[in-house]
Each structure stands twice: as structure tokens, then as C-alpha cells.
């Protein structure tokens, strides 16, 4: 029998030097330096738990370092619910190995066999009261060596911290209003910058009179390069005033036309596209089809709509620049900055500071380039640039609109004999640092512009993009899954939480509900009958039990359920939604059962699931980027409403703990199933299938009028 050769976790293989992850001080501290960043998801705490646990130290000894291209391991981008999976695994392995290295040194110093040594809060002791500690050995033990594959981490049962709810280490600063966000960061001599942007989409700056702005108090510089223009001022107030004056002096071209917002599906299907067959399954003995059902589902463009506008700080020293950013990937941003600035990457330091909640590729990277460009005119002083609310809502990349068509052949019993799923959508990723051209907005505006990046889709092997979660987990005899990725992109799209999974799960789980109820079969029973994965069945059974499926029928109230495993490889999540509705829908309660394997911080996982469920409810009931043929019009919270406190459903989360199973992330597991569960509950309450997001009063009326 062949044995598997042990392998390093991918993040550690890419950054094998142990000292890049961990440093010990003689004063009793361990500095832990992950490549992943805090974006409001609690990852820093989860990694501190893993490190403290594996090293046998109190978590208060752990100091977490913010990622920086100067010092941190390169872990790519903090996205895709992969941080615990990637960074956590690397951290656990690195700490286990470092613990062994220290024990080896202690064994030599104390003359005691390694196996006889014990570690308690960093103190190492052996028989006969011999003791030393990490801190005592810190100077002599070098961690400037590469990690090796065959190290065993602790057994799950011996973990004292991981698997237990620990208070997040970033929360006290936030609750006591201590500066922690990049927005609140002040550097000595810091200046403030603002960027000028057109109202009409992609309009070009044809003229700029600067006399007005020159008269504004505090002005330091006006910068212009092609259609990129901005101001630098001594104060933030001065920068705002200067921007207003600059706007008055600007003339613009007409810009480029936008699609018809009223018929997104027609627009998406009419565009040139690249077709990929994502998956195909052939039946061994095809069954006869009695009839074919075809349904189309759409979702609109969705805004990140972070609660804070994006912000960055940049400072030049000669031909070197230091950038502070809330980007999801400091190394990737550096790569793109190097392309735009035509500088070697070594001349650029990119350092992370926390921003407001990040749900994917928002404007963090764009504003970083803007800060770098404006700071060239600042004489070596740092320049802080912040976007406006309007800019955040119109110039950030959006989550891509989707049209999804599913066609199923049914046999005489109404069971599925063949399944065809087609997606029309822009690509769901145009992140920085991954192409020969930059993905940064100002780079498209300069006098010698880079071509605008057209979003692409990650391959299925890494989760897919528009096609994420499009391959059914159900045992249908045959299927074909097809993705049409648009090769034009009048509205800029990139990664938003779940990429295409929200749309695809909405479509699949709505359609299945329709087929099940059409057969007169309970939707829970229908799904259990078609699933083979016991973990999938477990979350469905757990949610059904917790929500007392199916509660008795009451007028105006509806119940719906849905299930997905995020990316088909990540967290399992099943949802029961309870809604109330007539002309408008309100979601009263969401019950969720979730399996993320080992939950490092169970309360953190529940927090992420609750957050995902609430955000998804907001997408479903309210959200849609609005535009006319010239410009984005949903540039404030009135035009782009999100769910408010009084509209938020009660949420119950049941966590199925599997300490022996590798952990996966929780942040994106709920969106798809919550969307479909609400849709199915609307049918239960009103007898109408809503297939077009969001479920506003207008879309309900339209659905009732076209009821099939």
C-alpha cells in the first residue's frame, strides 16, 4: 500500500521560512505575521487562537502583525472564504514545527528527552523540576529555516483554544472609538487629496480650468494626467472645497452608453460572449422524457456598498513609495502599482490597515493608486485620499448581473431525467495583480491609459466565477452546464461575495422547489432523495428539525427551504425562511444549519453566518444598482437602500461541529441558500414564483401578471 507523502500547506510551501510567520521575544511575546488581512470577518482572532493553541501559550502573548509587503508571507488575496483554510492550516503547521524546534533546544539544554518535556504558557519543563521557556531560548533558537512537511499538529481533542469561542481581539478598539481604521489614521504632516470623476460613465476630461481651484485656501497641488485629475490640500475640508472648485472648471465628453436597466436579461444575452462548457454528465441508460420545463432567473448588478468610502494613504521618498491600504491583497496591489508606475516592485511597500467591512473587490485598490498619483505632487508628505459616497456607489466594481436559464426534462413521474443550466454574465473577477495589465481605475484614465480589464472567471478547480455552484450536487442522471462570459463590459464588474453562487443557487434551488411541489413531494424529502453526501443531508435534516419543518399553514405567512455547499467544496448550509407578504415581502425568520468542518471560533462562525444571511436578505428584498443610459443613478442610500434594523429577520444558526475535519470559511455560505429559501417561501405564501431579483413590490406584481 502506498503512503501519501506529507505535504506542506500551500501557503507555507509558498512562504516556507518559519521566521516570516513567527517571532519570539525574550520578554514573553510571540509576534505572528499572517499574509491574510482583517476585513471585518474576525480572521486575525481565529489565527491568533490557532497559534496560541499549537504553541501552548496564552492568547494574550500573541501579537498579530498587519500584512505588509516588507515583512509578511505572501498569501495572495484575502477572499473566497479561504483564510482559515489557507492561512489557518499554514499557521497551525508552522507553530507545530516551531514548538518542536524549541523542544529540541530545550531538550539539549536540560539534558531531558523531548518526549518528557511539557509546555505550559511558554514555560518548558521536564522531570526533576528542570525548566526553561520559549522566552529564555528565544535568542538562541533561529527560525530562519524552512518548514518541513512531516510535522504533526496537536490532536483535535487536545486543542484548548481552537474550537472554542474567543472574544475578537479587534473589537475593544472599535467599541471604545480608538483609531483603528485607515480612515482614522493620522501621519505627521499628512495632506488630504480628492479625485475628480465624471458624472457620465467613462466620460473623458476634455478641459480643465484651474483658476477657481487655485484660489481655494490650503491648496497644495492640482494633479492631472489625461482624464485623471485631483487636488491635494493641507486639510480635508480644503480638499473638499478644492474639488468643488475643480469640478466647476472641468468639461467632459459624453461618455459611453450604458445598457437598458429595464431588460438586463436581453442585454446580457445579446452581448458577444465566450462560451465554456463547465460540466457535462451523461446518463448510462437515458430515461424517456415526458416534458421539458424551462425557467429563467436574473439578478441585477449589486453594489459592495461598504459603510465607509474607500480610503488610502501614500507617501513618496525619492523613487520609493509607501502605501497604506485596506486592500484584500497587499502583494497583488503592489504588482499593479508597479505596472502603472513603471517601478520595480521593491520600490513599493504596501501595508494593510483595516477598513470598513469588505465583501470583495471594492474600490480599496483604486483609491490606493489615486493616493500614490496625488502624492507625487506632495513633496514627500503623506497624502490621504478618501472617495465620496457617490464615488463609492458608482465607480467601484459591482457584482455582475446574471441571467440564468435552466431546462429540465421530466419523466412521467415528474422526476428529472436531464438538466441543462446556462449562465449569461460578465466575468466575476478583475482583481489586481493577476494580469499583464493593471486592474486599477486611474490606470484607465491616464493620458497613456491601460486598456480596461474585462472581467474573467476563475476556473472551476478554484471555485469558478459566474459558474460558481452551477454544477448540481444532486444525483440527476445527466446534465450540461454552460457559461457565457461577456466580452464587453459597459458596467465594471469584479468579485462580490459568492461571485456567481448567489445567482446559481437561487436558480437551482428555486427550480427544484418548483419541480418538487409540482410532484406533490415535500422539498426536504425531495432533496434528501437526490443527495448522496451525508454532510449535505445532515445540514438539511438539522435545519428541518430546528425549524420544525414544515410549520402549519397560516394566511400571509410562507415557509421555504434551500441548500448549497459553497463552491461545492466549502461550507454546507441549509436554510428555512419564514416570510410574511402581500404586496411587499418581509422576512420574519431565517433558520440555518451550517457545517464548516472544524469551527476554530464557533461564535465567529455564527457571526459570519448571521451577517451573510442578513446581507443576502438585503440583496433579495432591496438591492439593485440603478442606471439610465448615461450614468449610475443609485449613488446614495436613498437610491440604493439596504436592509434596516426594523426589517432584519430573527436568525437562528445551528452549527454542526466536526473538529476532525479541515476547517473552511463561513462568510459566503449563506447567501445562495438564503436567497432561494426566501423565493420558495414567497411561493408558499402567495403562490407565485418570483424569478427576478430583487423581490420588490414591482417585481412581485410583474411575477403575478406573468404567472405560469
Amino acid at each position: 500500500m502506498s503512503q501519501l507523502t506529507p505535504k506542506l500547506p500551500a501557503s507555507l510551501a509558498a512562504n516556507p521560512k518559519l521566521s516570516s510567520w513567527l517571532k519570539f521575544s525574550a520578554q514573553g511575546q510571540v509576534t505572528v505575521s499572517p499574509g491574510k488581512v482583517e476585513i471585518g470577518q474576525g480572521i486575525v482572532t481565529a489565527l491568533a487562537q490557532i497559534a496560541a493553541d499549537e504553541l501552548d501559550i496564552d492568547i494574550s502573548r500573541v501579537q498579530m502583525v498587519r500584512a505588509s509587503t516588507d515583512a509578511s508571507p505572501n498569501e495572495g488575496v484575502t477572499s473566497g472564504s479561504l483564510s482559515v483554510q489557507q492561512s489557518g492550516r499554514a499557521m497551525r503547521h508552522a507553530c507545530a514545527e516551531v514548538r518542536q524546534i524549541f523542544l529540541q533546544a530545550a531538550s539539549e539544554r536540560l539534558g531531558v528527552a523531548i518526549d518528557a518535556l511539557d509546555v505550559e504558557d511558554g514555560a518548558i519543563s521536564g522531570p526533576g523540576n528542570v525548566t526553561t521557556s520559549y522566552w529564555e531560548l528565544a535568542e538562541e533558537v533561529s527560525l530562519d529555516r524552512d518548514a518541513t512537511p512531516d510535522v504533526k499538529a496537536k490532536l483535535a481533542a487536545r486543542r484548548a483554544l481552537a474550537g472554542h469561542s474567543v472574544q475578537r481581539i479587534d473589537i475593544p478598539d472599535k467599541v471604545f472609538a480608538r483609531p483603528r481604521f485607515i480612515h482614522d489614521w493620522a501621519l505627521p504632516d499628512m495632506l488630504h487629496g480628492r479625485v475628480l470623476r465624471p458624472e457620465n460613465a467613462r466620460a473623458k476630461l476634455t478641459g480643465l480650468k484651474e483658476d477657481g481651484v487655485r484660489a481655494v485656501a490650503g491648496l497644495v497641488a492640482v494633479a492631472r494626467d489625461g482624464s485623471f485629475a485631483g487636488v491635494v490640500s493641507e486639510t480635508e475640508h480644503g480638499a473638499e472645497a478644492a474639488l468643488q472648485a475643480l469640478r466647476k472648471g472641468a468639461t467632459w465628453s459624453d461618455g459611453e452608453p450604458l445598457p437598458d436597466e429595464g431588460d438586463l436579461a436581453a442585454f446580457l444575452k445579446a452581448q458577444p460572449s465566450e462560451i465554456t462548457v463547465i460540466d457535462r454528465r451523461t446518463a448510462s441508460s437515458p430515461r424517456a422524457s415526458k416534458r421539458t420545463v424551462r425557467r429563467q432567473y436574473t439578478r441585477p448588478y449589486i453594489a459592495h456598498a461598504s459603510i465607509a468610502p474607500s480610503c488610502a494613504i501614500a507617501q513618496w521618498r525619492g523613487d520609493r513609495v509607501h502605501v497604506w491600504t485596506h486592500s484584500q491583497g497587499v502583494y497583488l496591489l503592489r504588482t499593479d502599482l508597479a505596472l502603472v508606475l513603471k517601478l520595480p516592485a521593491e520600490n513599493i511597500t504596501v501595508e494593510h490597515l483595516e477598513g470598513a467591512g469588505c465583501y470583495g473587490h471594492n474600490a480599496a485598490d483604486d483609491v490606493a493608486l489615486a493616493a500614490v498619483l496625488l502624492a507625487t505632487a506632495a513633496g514627500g508628505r503623506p497624502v490621504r485620499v478618501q472617495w465620496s459616497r457617490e464615488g463609492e456607489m458608482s465607480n467601484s466594481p459591482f457584482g455582475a448581473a446574471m441571467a440564468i436559464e435552466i431546462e429540465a426534462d421530466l419523466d412521467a413521474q415528474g422526476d428529472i431525467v436531464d438538466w441543462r443550466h446556462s449562465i449569461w454574465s460578465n466575468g466575476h473577477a478583475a482583481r489586481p495583480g493577476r494580469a499583464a495589465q493593471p486592474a486599477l481605475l486611474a490606470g484607465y484614465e491616464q493620458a497613456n491609459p491601460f486598456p480596461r480589464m474585462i472581467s474573467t472567471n476563475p476556473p472551476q478547480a478554484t471555485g469558478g466565477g459566474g459558474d460558481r455552484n452551477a454544477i448540481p450536487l444532486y444525483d440527476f442522471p445527466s446534465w450540461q452546464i454552460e457559461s457565457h462570459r461577456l466580452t464587453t463590459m459597459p458596467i465594471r464588474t469584479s468579485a462580490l461575495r459568492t461571485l456567481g453562487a448567489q445567482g446559481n443557487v437561487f436558480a437551482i434551488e428555486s427550480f427544484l422547489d418548483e419541480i418538487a411541489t409540482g410532484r406533490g413531494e415535500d422539498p426536504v424529502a425531495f432533496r434528501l432523495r437526490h443527495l448522496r453526501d451525508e454532510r449535505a443531508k445532515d445540514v438539511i435534516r438539522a435545519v428541518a428539525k430546528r425549524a420544525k419543518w414544515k410549520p402549519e399553514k397560516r394566511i400571509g405567512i410562507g415557509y421555504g427551504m434551500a441548500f448549497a455547499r459553497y463552491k461545492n467544496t466549502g461550507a454546507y448550509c441549509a436554510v428555512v425562511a419564514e416570510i410574511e407578504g402581500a404586496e411587499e415581502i418581509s422576512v420574519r425568520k431565517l433558520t440555518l444549519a451550517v457545517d464548516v468542518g472544524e469551527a476554530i471560533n464557533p461564535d465567529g462562525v455564527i457571526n459570519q453566518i448571521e451577517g451573510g444571511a442578513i446581507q443576502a436578505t438585503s440583496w433579495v428584498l432591496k438591492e439593485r444598482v440603478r442606471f439610465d443610459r448615461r450614468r449610475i443613478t443609485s449613488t446614495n442610500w436613498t437610491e440604493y437602500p439596504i436592509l434596516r434594523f426594523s426589517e432584519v429577520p430573527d436568525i437562528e444558526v445551528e452549527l454542526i461541529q466536526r473538529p476532525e475535519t479541515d476547517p473552511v470559511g463561513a462568510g459566503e455560505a449563506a447567501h445562495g441558500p438564503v436567497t432561494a429559501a426566501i423565493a420558495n417561501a414567497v411561493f408558499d405564501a402567495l403562490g407565485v414564483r418570483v424569478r427576478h431579483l430583487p423581490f420588490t413590490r414591482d417585481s412581485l406584481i410583474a411575477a403575478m401578471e406573468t404567472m405560469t
Partner: protein
Amino acid sequence: MPSVRFCLNGVETDIDADPDRSLLDILRGQLGMTGPHFGCGAGECGACNVMIGDRAVAACDTPLWSVAGKDIMPPEGLGSAEQPHPLQRAFIAEQAVQCGYCVSGILISAAALLKRNPTPTGREVKEALDGNLCRCGSHNRMVRAVLRAADEMAAR
């Protein structure tokens, strides 16, 4: 430049500035207080809420002149790690934060609520926080935290 006088966290404060400028701009700029956060600049999200008298008010669309003679408390005035307000203790106990950018404004809205209604129901808490936006979805934890703080304050 005309001067506007108000009471900031109990300290008489004079500001020489254009009285039409926003209170948020003055607090974050001249006074260097970063507790109130900029979110929208239009009074739509509550991230910049400060207490003026007994009311939670968005500082971004409050002109400086309008606060002459008033008591102003930004989030920094609520409490500290050494002397936390019951709301701050409760928000930590309930882990009622994801990114936390909105939380300082929400604490102010909650503090104003508990001043006028020390024993609110869950529905009343939601109504009081309806002018505050949270994008991460921490709403239910925040409501639980406010109720917990109210209980703690009532028990004293």
C-alpha cells in the same frame, strides 16, 4: 473668523471656523476626534452620530452654528476601557460587531435611546437604530447588546 462655543464632553470649547462647516468636519479635522466616522455626508447612515443634548444627531449634516451653546458628546465621551459604559461592555460581551465601522454611531443612538427609555423592548431598540446602517449584518447582536446594557443599568 467668527467663533462658536459649545460644550464638548463637558469641556467648554471655542472654535474659530466658518459656521456653515459641518460639525463632523470640525470634530474630525480641527479637534482630531475620529470616533464619529464619515459614511455618506448626507445624514443617511448614522456612522457619524454624536449626542447633542439628549439626542443622537448625524454630525455630517449639522452645521457648526447650530450647536452654539449645546452639549456635544462624540463616541469618545461614552466611556473607556478603564471606565466602560454598560453599552460598551455589552457590545463586547455579545461580540456585536463585524467590521465595526458603524458601531460608534450605533452606540450613540443606543445611548440616546436608553436616556429617554431605560427599559426598551426589542422592537423599540430596532426603531431607535433604524437611522443607522450596518452593512455586515450585525443587527441582531447589536439589539441584544442594547437590551443587555439596559438590563444591567436597571439592575444597578
